[in-house]
C-alpha cells in the first residue's frame, strides 16, 4: 500500500530576468493507493498530475509531506535506501514512442532490469530469458516476434505493451499509468486499458491512473477512487462512479460538463456547469490569487467567502456530510448531475 500525506511541490524556475518564478505544482496532496486497488487522478492540463505521478515513482523530489510505502515513511530513509521501495512503483509513460530506446532491441530493454532482478532473487541467467518470454506473453505479445526487434519496428500499441512488460520486470506493486493511452490510436486504446485491468486482476498490482479523460479513468477503475485535482490541490475525491454521476465541486462539474456528448448515443446531463470565461482564461496569471479557493475566479457560484478563505479538502463545510463518503473542497457543495447519459433505445 502506498499513501501520501501533504505532498507539496513548488517548481522554481530561474527566469532570465524575471528572477525566480514559482509554480506551485502540488499544494498538500493526500492520497492512498490500496493494495490491488485502482485510483485515478483527473484534472486539466498543468494541474500537477504528472508531477504527482513522478513523485510517487521516486523520480522527482517533493518539498514537503511524505510518501509511505508499505508502512515505511520515505522521509525516514536516506535517498539510497528509498530506492528499493520506489522500485515497487513503476511509471508507464504517456508516450510509448519515447519510452523505449530506439537503438536497443526489446530483448536488451528487458534484459537489463531482469538481470538486476535475477541478482536480487538469486536466479540464473537462463531465468532472465524465461522471464522475458513470460512477461511478453503476459502482455499478449509474441515473444519470438517481439524480442529481437527494435522499437520502431513495432506499432504504438505493441510498444506500450512492451513498456508495461518492462515495468513488470521488477515485480512492482503499483503501476502509475500517466495518460498511458492518450498517444495511442483510438481504436487500440481499449486494448491497453483492458490489459491494465487484466494485470490488476491477475497480478494484484495496484493502479494509479492519471488522465484528463474521465471516461477511461472510469473504465480502468470503476471500483476505485477518483481524485480530482485543480492547480495542485485535490478538490474532490470519492468513489469513481459517485464522482461522475453527482460531482459536488463546481470544477468537477464543469469538467464533466465539458466532455463532448455523443449525440445520437448519449444525451447531456440534466444540469450543466460552465466555468466563467474570464478574459484570457488560459493565462495562469489571470487566475486569482492563492488566498481563497483556487477555482473562485472561474466559478459560477463564487461568493465572497470563496475569495478570502481557503477551502480544506473534507472540512470546508463540516456540516455537510456526504452520504457516499466523498471529500471535497468547496464552500458551497451541491451535487449536480452533469455527466452525459446513454440514450436508451427502444
Amino acid at each position, binding site marked *: 500500500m502506498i499513501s501520501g500525506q501533504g505532498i507539496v511541490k513548488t517548481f522554481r524556475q530561474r527566469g532570465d530576468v524575471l528572477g525566480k518564478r514559482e509554480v506551485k505544482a502540488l499544494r498538500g496532496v493526500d492520497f492512498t493507493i490500496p493494495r490491488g486497488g485502482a485510483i485515478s487522478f483527473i484534472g486539466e492540463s498543468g494541474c500537477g498530475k504528472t508531477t504527482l505521478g513522478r513523485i510517487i*515513482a521516486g523520480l522527482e523530489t517533493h518539498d514537503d509531506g511524505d510518501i509511505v510505502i508499505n508502512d515505511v515513511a520515505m522521509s525516514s530513509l536516506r535517498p539510497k535506501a528509498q530506492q528499493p521501495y520506489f522500485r515497487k512503483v513503476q511509471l508507464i509513460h504517456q508516450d510509448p514512442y*519515447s519510452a*523505449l530506446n*530506439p*537503438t536497443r532491441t526489446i*530483448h536488451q530493454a528487458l534484459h537489463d532490469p531482469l538481470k*538486476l532482478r535475477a541478482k536480487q532473487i538469486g536466479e540464473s541467467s537462463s531465468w532472465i530469458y524465461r522471464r522475458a518470454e513470460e512477461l511478453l506473453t503476459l502482455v499478449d505479445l509474441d515473444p*519470438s516476434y517481439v524480442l529481437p526487434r527494435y522499437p520502431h519496428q513495432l506499432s504504438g500499441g505493441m510498444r506500450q505493451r512492451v513498456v508495461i512488460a518492462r515495468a513488470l520486470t521488477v515485480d512492482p506493486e503499483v503501476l502509475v499509468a500517466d495518460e498511458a493511452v492518450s498517444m495511442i490510436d483510438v481504436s487500440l486504446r481499449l486494448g491497453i486499458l483492458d490489459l491494465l485491468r487484466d494485470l490488476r486482476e491477475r497480478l494484484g498490482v495496484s493502479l494509479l491512473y492519471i488522465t484528463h479523460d474521465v471516461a477511461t479513468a472510469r473504465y480502468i477503475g470503476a471500483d476505485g477512487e477518483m481524485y480530482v485535482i485543480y492547480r495542485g490541490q485535490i478538490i474532490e475525491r470519492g468513489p469513481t462512479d459517485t464522482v461522475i454521476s453527482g460531482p459536488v465541486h463546481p470544477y468537477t462539474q464543469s469538467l464533466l460538463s465539458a466532455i463532448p456528448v455523443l449525440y445520437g448515443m448519449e444525451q447531456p446531463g440534466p444540469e450543466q456547469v460552465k466555468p466563467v470565461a474570464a478574459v484570457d482564461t488560459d493565462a495562469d496569471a489571470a487566475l486569482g490569487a492563492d488566498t481563497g479557493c483556487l477555482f473562485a475566479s472561474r466559478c459560477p457560484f463564487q461568493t465572497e467567502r470563496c475569495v478570502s478563505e481557503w477551502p480544506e479538502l473534507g472540512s470546508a463545510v463540516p456540516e455537510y456530510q456526504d452520504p457516499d463518503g466523498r471529500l471535497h473542497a468547496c464552500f458551497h457543495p451541491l451535487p449536480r448531475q452533469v455527466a452525459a447519459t446513454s440514450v436508451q433505445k427502444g
Partner: protein
Amino acid sequence: MTSPGMVDVTTKGPSMRRNFWRGVWRVMLRKPSRLFGVALLGLFIFMATLGPVLYGRPLPRDPDNFFAPPSLQHPFGTDFQGFDVLALVVIGSRYVLLTALITAIVTIVLGASIGLFAGYRRGRLDAVLMRITDINLTIPGIPILLVLSTVWQFASPWEMGLVLGLLGWGALARAVRSQTLSLRERGFIEAARGLGLSTPHIVVRELLPPIAPYIAMNLLMSMILAVWAQVGLFFLGVMPVIGENWGVMLNRAVFDFGAMTTASRLPYMLAPLLALLLLTVAIVLVVDAMDEIFNPRLREE
C-alpha cells in the same frame, strides 16, 4: 520458431546487422562519391600504417637530383636533398593521421563524457561545465597553440594530438549535451531510472548508443580540424622541423624554396597540399555517408 524457454536472439542478431550493412551499402551506392571517399580514407590509413614500412629506412634518394621536376619515377619531383616528394608525403601521413586520431580520441573522451555528464546530471554542475565548454568553444585555439609552442615543441603526435584535443572538445560536449538533454526528456531514460538501473549503466547502455552516431560524425569533423590545425602550425614554422611532415613541407615550399615565386618549386608545395585536400575530401564524403546512415529521421518513423 525458437526452442521453448530460451529465446534465441543470436539467430536474429546477425540478420539485423546484415540489414544494417545492407542499408549502409545502399546509402553508399546512392552517391558513388561516397564510395570514393571511403576508398580514399582507406588509402590514407594504408599509407599511414604501411607507408613507412614500404619505403624503408634510410629513404632512398637521388643525391644528384635536387628539386627534380615531376617525372614517372618521381610523380611530384624530388625535394632539396633528392628525396622523392611522394614518398615524403606518404610517410608524412602517419604523423597527420596519428595526431588526428589522438585528437579525436581526446576530444571524444572529454567532449562526450563532459557532454553526457552535464546533460545527464544537469543542475549546477551542468551550468559550470557548460560555462567551461563555452570558454573552450570561444577561446581562439590557434593563437593559444602558437603561444604554447614557445614552451612546448609537440614533437610527437601524441603531444600534438593531446593539446589539440584539449583545445577542441567544446563543440562535441555541446552537441552531446544537447542530445543528452533531449534524450533525457524521452521516457526511456526515466524508465531506466525508475527500474533502478545504475547511473553508469544508464549512461553507457541507454544514452550512449543513440548518441554514438553524433559522436562518430563529430569525431570525423574534429579530425578534419585537427589535421588543419597541425598542418597549419607547422606551416607557420613555429613548430619543430620533422623530416616528413606535410606542414613542414608546405612551410619550406613557401617560405624557403620559393614555391610561390617560381613554378619549378611548385610540386613540392602541391604534393602536401593535394594530400591535405584529398584527406579532407575523404573525411567529408565519409561524414556525408554517415549522416545519411545514422540520420534519425531514417531510423525512426
